[in-house]
């Protein structure tokens, strides 16, 4: 309940990691950390593949990240046509956490460069949907 609201199009209704969406509604991007061995995960995992535990806490990803790579899509897969052109990118934050997602559509796409500083912000979409984007820091 709730996870189907995440992203532009959802393919997953049910996941034990659905709390992610609650945090998004609170303007937070959170990953999970294993309470047994301390391994941190983003995207959030419900199961620790390091020690097999399923006891996870949520930790916030904050501050500035560095944009590692990006692309501007001028052709979309079915279901995403109305967003074209849109940018996808991946950025690295503290603790080596990498975050993949859309770039903020208010950015000047032609000014986006690898290495630029970014932060994450949540964005409300139509029809009660919610997502996050990488935006200029």
């Amino acid at each position: 309940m709730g996870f189907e609201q995440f992203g532009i199009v959802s393919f997953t209704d049910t996941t034990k990691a659905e709390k992610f969406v609650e945090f998004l509604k609170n303007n937070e991007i959170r990953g999970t950390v294993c309470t047994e061995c301390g391994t941190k995960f983003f995207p959030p995992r419900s199961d620790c593949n390091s020690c097999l535990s399923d006891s996870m806490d949520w930790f916030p990803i904050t501050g500035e990240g560095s944009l590692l790579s990006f692309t501007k899509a001028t052709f979309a897969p079915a279901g995403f046509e109305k967003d074209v052109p849109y940018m996808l990118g991946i950025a690295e934050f503290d603790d080596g956490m990498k975050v993949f997602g859309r770039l903020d559509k208010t950015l000047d796409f032609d000014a986006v460069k690898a290495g630029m500083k970014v932060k994450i912000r949540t964005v409300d979409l139509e029809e009660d949907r919610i997502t996050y984007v990488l935006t200029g820091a």
Partner: protein
Amino acid sequence: MAKVAVIGVGQSSFVRAYPGSIRELAFEAYREAMKDAGLKSRQIDASVVCSAPEYDKQRTPAGLMAEYLGLNPQPTFYVESVCSSSSSGLRTAYALVASGLHDVVLVLGFQKMSEISSAESQERMGRGADIQWEAPFGTMMPAYYAMYARGHFEQYGTTEEDLALIRVKASTYGQINDKAVFRKAVALEKIMEPKYIATPLKMFDCCANADGSSCVILASEEKAKDLCDNPVWIKGLGMATAPINMAGRDTFSGLKCAQLAAKQAYEMAGIAPSDVDVAEVHDCFTIAEMMAYTDLGFAEPGGGPDLIRNKETYREGKIPVNVDGGLLSKGHPIGATGGSQIRTIVLQLRGEAGEMQVPEAKTGLVHNIGGVGIYGNVTIFGKE
């Protein structure tokens, strides 16, 4: 490890829209390979069927193909690793034969992509990615590989023109491969026109969807000596995976799954990259071939652009790569592609590659990747 040989190969023409159903498409490759091997269906001990799901409506395709090809009641099953499905199929068949469980195993790869639109095809490919955390943003293969192109440009100063030269090469050989979708030369200026799909990749940096099938027949050493005049031997195999999500990747300028798979294959075959006489690499996008040059050890990191600029990967060069036109000219019917690459290398080593022949090729390599480097398969073939 027991010796396993390829005793028959076949493929359909790769076309935009096959005027028939998937079973009829599959039969084209099957017929050619069975005639090549001179076998009857009862001589096949087991079959492995390979394709990417959700392009046609047939569920459990192995069962269908076994019936249509005449391979009941022998064992059959489905093997999938998206674009490297038929290489994974070959690996599976190799293990079945090397273990002694079966003596002759057939690998059938097929894909009919024309039943759905281009946008729907990309939607399927976008779900060949993490559907919980990445597909919701509108992922697709061109976008993923484009991020690797950007990473390569940042790391090594590679340019769009360096990538375009790879398409020029592909189009040179597409002209002489009558099984290819693209049969015309494409000029550099045309490739450089700013028709972006996902920056920095443009239209001609991308392979085309296609319909096609491929078939490879493996045999044990004993059966190969009995049934075949010109067996080609599997000398080394490697397979490795990388996280399906981008957040799990270390770098964006090479494919780790390919590097690891290549290392395994070279070690098993007891050879170095410089011993390879001819190679088929997974050029779904120009950047994919560029990365393969380094991932396979044909060039040092950053040395890829020089290799293509100096034409070293042309037929007359020091390491001929994709001299059958590659995926860029042949098209990429997902499940069939690996088998087509394998067929080309087998023909090269038999001396049956016609105008594409690399003189005296003795050692060949196939590099076949699934998705944006989720699965890496490298297989090495030899004449002895």
